[in-house]
């Protein structure tokens, strides 16, 4: 009798778990299209707006600093340093924000659309964690020692973020339609690409 009761209890438990799992499945699919597009935009904004090597070089390169120093005015040098510090901090905080958004998206949605090996998943998780630590360290260094505290570290952080973006880009590749080159180069009246 006891065996029958425990057997029924285990069976009922499994059935409940199955029902819960079935109910959860559609909610993942529903509403995910918007999140996919948002993730794709976040990725593009990182790749196009924040990580290009030219921009990183302009913010952290020393040519402008050399020019300002050659003028020999403390007032100008202080203004330049405070402006560059402000820009560098905006840059790093935007990268942190976007990377965090991508991580949340990857954890909750992206993994369901792509088949990834456990090793790959682990490697991406390590990359996200590493990038978060790098960003925090960079933010601290910039706050403490100014925009030129660790330019090489900033460049390497941008490269790491770029590498992670291209990995995630592959998992969202199905969102990029095969637009012919001629149509892709069309631009709208406001200068946006059509």
């Amino acid at each position: 009798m006891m065996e029958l009761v425990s057997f029924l209890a285990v069976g009922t438990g499994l059935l409940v778990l199955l029902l819960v799992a079935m109910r959860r499945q559609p909610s993942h699919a529903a509403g995910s299209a918007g999140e996919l597009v948002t993730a794709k935009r976040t990725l593009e904004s990182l790749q196009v707006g924040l990580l290009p090597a030219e921009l990183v070089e302009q913010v952290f390169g020393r040519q402008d600093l050399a020019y300002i120093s050659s003028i020999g005015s403390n007032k100008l040098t202080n203004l330049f340093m405070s402006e560059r510090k402000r820009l560098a901090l905006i840059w790093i905080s935007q990268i942190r924000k976007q990377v965090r958004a991508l991580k949340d998206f990857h954890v909750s949605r992206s993994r369901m659309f792509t088949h990834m090996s456990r090793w790959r998943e682990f490697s991406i998780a390590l990359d996200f964690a590493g990038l978060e630590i790098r960003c925090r360290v960079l933010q601290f260094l910039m706050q403490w020692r100014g925009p030129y505290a660790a330019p090489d570290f900033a460049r390497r952080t941008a490269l790491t973020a770029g590498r992670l973006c291209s990995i995630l880009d592959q998992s969202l590749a199905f969102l990029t339609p095969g637009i012919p080159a001629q149509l892709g180069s069309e631009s709208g009246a406001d200068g946006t690409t059509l």
Partner: protein
Amino acid sequence: MIAKAKRADVLAASEDLRRRTLPYTSGSLDRLIYLASMRDYNTGLYVHQGLAARFSPEVACEALADCHQESFQELTSLQLKDLAEQLELYMRSTGTAPGDFVRAWKDLAPYRVAVPVGTDSLLAEFLFSNLKIALAILEQRHSPILEPTPAA
């Protein structure tokens, strides 16, 4: 096919603008300000009577937007030294007295409304920040009183 034909029109209009109008500007900052002034504040559309008469208002609008974007990219790629020169050139082209120019630009920051639509916020902030420094350089250049050197 229609899109392709339209694009050819836009390219021709942009070329026309680059050949006939833009060479008369003093530099890339002057071009940016000029092209931004062609944009209607209420609609965001660019208006150029002559270009619209030769092509069409839509084509003229797209051509102006393309050239505006181009001059913005040109400016953001400049080093601070070159940007300061551009600002100096622009100031001279307006014929305004340096003191008045610096004061007006510091108070009004007109460059903030001169960026093309859809510009990345960090890139725009980068240009604003560099222009702010370039303005301080200009102010120092034209200041009659030299800054006192700090005591050792």
